[in-house]
């Protein structure tokens, strides 16, 4: 079943095309890596998927709901980190989540606190929940970012460069968390990153873009097959420079 459908999406800034006629689908249960060099249009597309900006052409559907026309229903299925998660620094991590959980109509009032504690537990921040966000390390902020993405019981989580600034231990924790959420809770992931090595360990599918256009999409096995004896990294560099 398709969780995310991108159909001929185009976004321009003046005469420059940021994303051009892009189409691909993400299926339920996928952990999909979204790969491309800096400035390829990854964040622009993620902003469009999360309804922050509008495409000039094309459609984006989440669980069958059009993000532009049926924004509330479409985004009800999504949790996201767009760029780095910037929290309200004057509130504790728990208060940030308590504030944001109110915006999910599918979580009844009496279950809000329990849901916040549950997601704090999932990301391993239960013991630091009461501390102000400004005292958190970058890794903790990323984990809190995932916690806020989990709040509304999403079917799809979109992560934009989630490993940015994380140390190797933080990256490993994040990887395990994604795999656990995918396996245990059946959540679909769409993860943009530069760290191809890291994506290789968690992603079943890849979408590769360059200069705002789709270059290739398929499963990891398919990519490995076309890369032949070269590593995926070498093949990726080859795709980007050709």
């Amino acid at each position, binding site marked *: 079943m398709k969780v995310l459908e991108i159909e001929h999406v185009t976004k321009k800034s003046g005469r420059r095309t940021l994303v051009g006629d892009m189409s691909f689908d993400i299926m339920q249960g996928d952990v999909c890596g979204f790969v491309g060099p800096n400035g390829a249009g990854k964040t622009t597309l993620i*902003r469009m998927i*999360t*309804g*922050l*900006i*509008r495409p000039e052409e094309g459609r984006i559907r989440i669980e069958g709901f059009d993000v532009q026309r049926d*924004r*509330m*229903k*479409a*985004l*009800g299925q*999504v949790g*996201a980190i*767009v*760029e780095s*998660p*910037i*929290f*309200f620094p*004057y*509130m504790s991590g728990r*208060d*940030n989540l*308590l*504030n*944001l959980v*109110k*915006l*999910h*109509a599918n979580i009844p009032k009496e279950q809000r606190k329990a849901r916040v504690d549950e997601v704090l537990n999932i990301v391993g921040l239960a013991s630091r929940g009461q501390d102000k966000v400004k005292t958190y390390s970058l890794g903790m902020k990323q984990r809190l970012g995932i916690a*806020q993405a989990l709040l*509304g019981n999403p079917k799809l989580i979109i992560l934009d460069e989630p490993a940015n600034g994380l140390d190797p231990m933080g990256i490993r924790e994040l990887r395990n968390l994604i795999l656990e959420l995918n396996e245990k809770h059946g959540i679909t992931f769409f993860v943009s990153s530069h760290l191809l090595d890291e994506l290789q360990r968690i992603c079943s599918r890849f979408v590769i873009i360059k200069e705002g256009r789709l270059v290739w999409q398929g499963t990891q096995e398919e990519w490995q097959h076309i890369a032949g004896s070269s590593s995926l990294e070498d093949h990726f560099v080859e795709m980007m420079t050709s």
Partner: protein
Amino acid sequence: MMQLLQSDWQRMWKRKKTFVSMLIFVGIVVLDCLFLMMQNLGAFDNVSTVPLTAQNFSLFLLKEVSFFLVLIIGPILMIDSFNGEYHGGQLRLVLIRPISFMKLFAAKWINLAVIMAMFLVATFAIGELFGHLFKPSVDTVVFLNPDRSYSPAGAFMYCLESYGLFMLIILAQLSLTGLICTVMPSPIICYLGWVGVALGTVYVSDTFSFLMFGMSAIFQWMAGSYTHALLMPVFVCMVLGFACTMLWWNRRNWVK
């Protein structure tokens, strides 16, 4: 909508600035009360004065504190809410939820209106308290129009109506600031934008000078000597500013 209101209300009060503004404002109101207590006359302008009494004290108190509300506390709270959260990138966490942008703006507008009303209620309550404690009570009160005198109950309603009018002016400011905060890029520029609009209108047309000199307009309007329309331009600013900003929020690109 209720959840949006609650969530924004909570964030507003968690910002230290809101609480500190409230404290500073109460301090200013009390200092202004002390300043007024030293005087025997309340001045409507450079020429017209009346004796300060328990019945008109709160009205003159509002005149003293109105500039703090219009030029400092109001714009700062409004800009922090309409532009500061977005400029700082924190609002993105709210924008990616299943909410309507129009309702989000409406929630912010309503919450700010409630907070500004709280500032006015505090001013009125403190004014009435100080007035009745430290100024003589009289049987008849005259305001700017010497031909109309009021009983204590009438004077109370007169002051209340003046506060109500000032609240309407604040709401017009709120809608215009919302629009300025949507058009201008950063909180500092928004503030300059607001000062520019408030001051500029004084020079451009007397009809809109209530944005800067609200109390002067209210004094004259209540006395029946205001030569321009007041309610119409106030509602035009309020409704047009609100509607334009709301539609803009629905159509805009949120790139921060």
